[in-house]
């Protein structure tokens, strides 16, 4: 007892010096970003550095603005946590109060050594922005997508990746993949490198089943063992970045390093989303809560979370209600900050049994008292993708425990995706009743549920509203094909190609129709176009290979079928034909 009392009393009055108490905390929590070449505006690597900033160090740590880390303690434990303990915060406060004494350099911990190279060693593949973009000196924050083309010819499995922004202007970034060429088309329409906005084209997606975000201070991302994600040949990597002007024009040429594994995944994580599309905030409203929930269809381990809202979101909660009624907090962000958003990977996966209810709650403040409100005076804000709109999302990365579980998750995922597509596009139509692309999306959702009449209604509306929309004609063609109206289908596909000669699926469908009607030459023309436009289309490769096989062009058939088999290993027909092609090739030699 007495000893403890003496001890704690001594701790309170011990002088705090840089070398003894401050340096260990500073080197561990501040220096990784506050050093040359990183995102932070100044270095914190030495006594002199720290002393210069002592007052602000004490202030920003006490207010928990730095190091930036949004989740509250006691609600999920995550990899890469940057939260200071109360004792660490007190070190800065006491050091400031003591006048920032240096102390005995002999007691200093070793100064941190940071590699200026890739942190996990030389990557297997490095890609970079083909040209530098100049971040303007001033003005608003910039949201922009940049394309980093891939050069490899085979699918590779990514076990880890590191993003190097090479500029302090990058505030956060999301890695996405585009196999459609859509992002390139957007890029081509903008004279500068990349294209603006937060409204990512539909085809641009996160790696299947994974989150991929970066923020200052982020450590290189390593996927759990057995869970690499795929980089497909011909795809583009699209980095969506939030850029903050620095006061002078700033060149930006970011790069990405990938580390591959030869071993394909042994399991497949799935992503499910909790999203509320009804967000509609009257000016001045505070404490507006929007929620969403889902029930787990099978046992799963929760690997990670990605919360997302914009500037009016103030508080984000993720909650699991187990089948026995016990509530488990998964994530609490009491003071959401758009600037420091990211995804969170649990230190230990959280097991959740089938029947668990997962709940998201996002609280908004659209009053003038919200200092992050982008509008002054506040205005009505609804759901949407731009920063002037709002969102309420919590994405979950789950690993089903069994194959049956995976199938159940896929069904749940499809149902929820259809629900999301419907809600999102109905919302788009409420804001703009002439949004023909939204009508097409509603039609697609109906078609995926087998509701052909409803789908047709939407596609016809879209054609009426915007006659030159290629996809509206394409899907009308598809319905005609399903209903065995080849003439009408062919007309719609032809119209699609008039409007967009690069429409892969229209080529593919025309190819299939010509093939069915025994016109292999014409079918081959369309499949050849499809193969050129999308090197990852397994059907076009398989069909063109089939035609070449019939034509006795064994070598070409072999190449196409081998590629098709690689793109879709589960297709037994393709494998059989590939075998035939190989046998003929051998026999011919």
């Amino acid at each position, binding site marked *: 007892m007495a000893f403890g009392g003496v001890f704690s009393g001594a701790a309170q009055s011990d002088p705090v010096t840089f070398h003894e108490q401050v340096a260990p905390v500073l080197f561990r929590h501040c220096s990784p970003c506050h050093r040359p070449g990183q995102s932070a*505006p100044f270095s914190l690597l030495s006594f002199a550095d720290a002393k210069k900033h002592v007052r602000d160090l004490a202030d920003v740590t006490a207010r928990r603005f730095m190091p930036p880390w949004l989740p509250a303690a006691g609600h999920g434990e995550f990899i890469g946590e940057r939260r200071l303990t109360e004792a660490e915060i007190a070190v800065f406060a006491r050091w400031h109060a003591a006048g920032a004494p240096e102390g005995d350099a002999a007691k200093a911990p070793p100064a941190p050594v940071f590699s200026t190279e890739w942190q996990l060693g030389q990557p297997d593949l490095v890609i970079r922005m083909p040209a530098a973009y100049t971040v303007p000196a001033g003005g608003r924050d910039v949201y922009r997508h940049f394309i980093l083309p891939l050069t490899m010819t085979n699918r590779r499995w990514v076990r880890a990746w590191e993003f190097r922004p090479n500029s302090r202007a990058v505030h956060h970034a999301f890695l996405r993949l585009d196999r459609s060429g859509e992002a390139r088309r957007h890029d081509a329409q903008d004279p500068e490198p990349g294209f603006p906005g937060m409204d990512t084209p539909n085809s641009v997606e996160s790696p299947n089943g994974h989150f991929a975000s970066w923020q200052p201070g982020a450590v290189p991302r390593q996927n759990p063992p057995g869970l690499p994600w795929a980089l497909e040949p011909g795809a583009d990597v699209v980095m969506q970045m939030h850029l903050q002007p620095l006061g002078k024009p700033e060149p930006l040429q970011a790069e990405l390093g990938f580390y591959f594994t030869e071993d394909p995944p042994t399991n497949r994580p799935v992503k499910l989303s909790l999203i509320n599309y009804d967000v509609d905030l009257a000016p001045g409203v505070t404490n507006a809560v929007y929620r969403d929930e889902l029930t787990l269809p099978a046992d799963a381990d929760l690997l990670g979370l990605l919360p997302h809202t914009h500037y009016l979101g103030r508080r984000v909660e993720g909650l699991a209600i187990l089948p026995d009624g016990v509530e488990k907090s998964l994530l609490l962000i009491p003071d959401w900050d758009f600037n420091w958003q990211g995804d969170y990977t649990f230190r230990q996966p959280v097991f959740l049994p089938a029947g668990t209810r997962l709940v998201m709650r996002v609280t908004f403040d659209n009053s003038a008292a919200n200092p992050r409100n982008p509008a*002054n005076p506040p205005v009505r804000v609804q759901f949407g993708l731009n920063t002037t709109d709002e969102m309420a999302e919590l994405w979950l990365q789950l690993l089903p425990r069994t194959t049956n579980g995976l199938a159940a998750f896929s069904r749940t995922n499809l149902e929820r995706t259809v629900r999301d597509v419907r809600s999102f596009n109905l919302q788009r139509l409420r804001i703009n009743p002439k949004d023909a692309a939204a009508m097409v999306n509603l039609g697609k959702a109906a078609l995926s549920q087998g509701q052909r009449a409803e789908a047709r209604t939407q596609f016809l509306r879209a054609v009426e509203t915007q006659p030159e929309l290629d996809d509206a004609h394409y899907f009308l063609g598809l319905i005609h094909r399903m209903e065995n109206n080849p003439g009408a289908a062919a007309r719609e596909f032809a119209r699609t190609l008039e409007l967009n000669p690069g429409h892969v699926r229209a080529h593919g469908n025309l190819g299939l129709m010509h093939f069915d009607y025994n016109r292999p030459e014409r079918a081959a023309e369309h499949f050849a176009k499809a193969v050129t436009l999308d090197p990852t289309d397994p059907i076009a490769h398989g069909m063109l290979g089939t035609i070449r096989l019939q034509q006795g062009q064994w070598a070409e058939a072999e190449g196409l079928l081998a590629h098709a088999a690689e793109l879709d290993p589960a297709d037994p027909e393709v494998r059989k034909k590939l075998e035939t092609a190989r046998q003929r090739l051998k026999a011919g030699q």
Partner: protein
Amino acid sequence: MRFGYPLFALVAGLLWTGCSGSGRGYPVQRLDGAKATLRATPETKAWVFVFLGVECPIANRCLPELMALEREFAGAGVRFCFVYPNQDEDPNVIRRHQADYGLMGETFRDPGLRLARQLGASKTPEAVFLDAAGKLIYRGRINDQFLALGQGKPAPTRRDLAEALTQFCAGHPPAGLVQPPVGCSFRPLP
């Protein structure tokens, strides 16, 4: 004896804040090291002192707006003075900063914080806007984009300094309006 001077300076600062008086002038150090006292000339209709720090991200982000304001209001007789108060930022560091950011205009140091104390400034960036007679018009943040270091919104929704300048030129300036500055503390004196 040891506390005599700083205490005197502090009290003096309090007394003189906001009513520095044209007669007293503004004590600064030029980049060549020479001490000077700035005084209004017949052309000076008003002063805007802006305190800057080489490493302060908020100050740097405000520079394009500050340069635009200087260009816009110089013709109206508003004299902009950019002041570097951090003692460790020597003239070479300041010149490099100006070259990096394309910052022109009158530039001074205030390593002893004499001017800062006289004007009541405490952060970078902070603007002190005075009329020719030395009466405070506006003091504080440049705009409302930032809430703290590392915290902010995508663009300002209120440009406090610009508003005060516009009102001044329209003939109805605010009287001694103060908005707390947001940014980096002045460096402690060794």
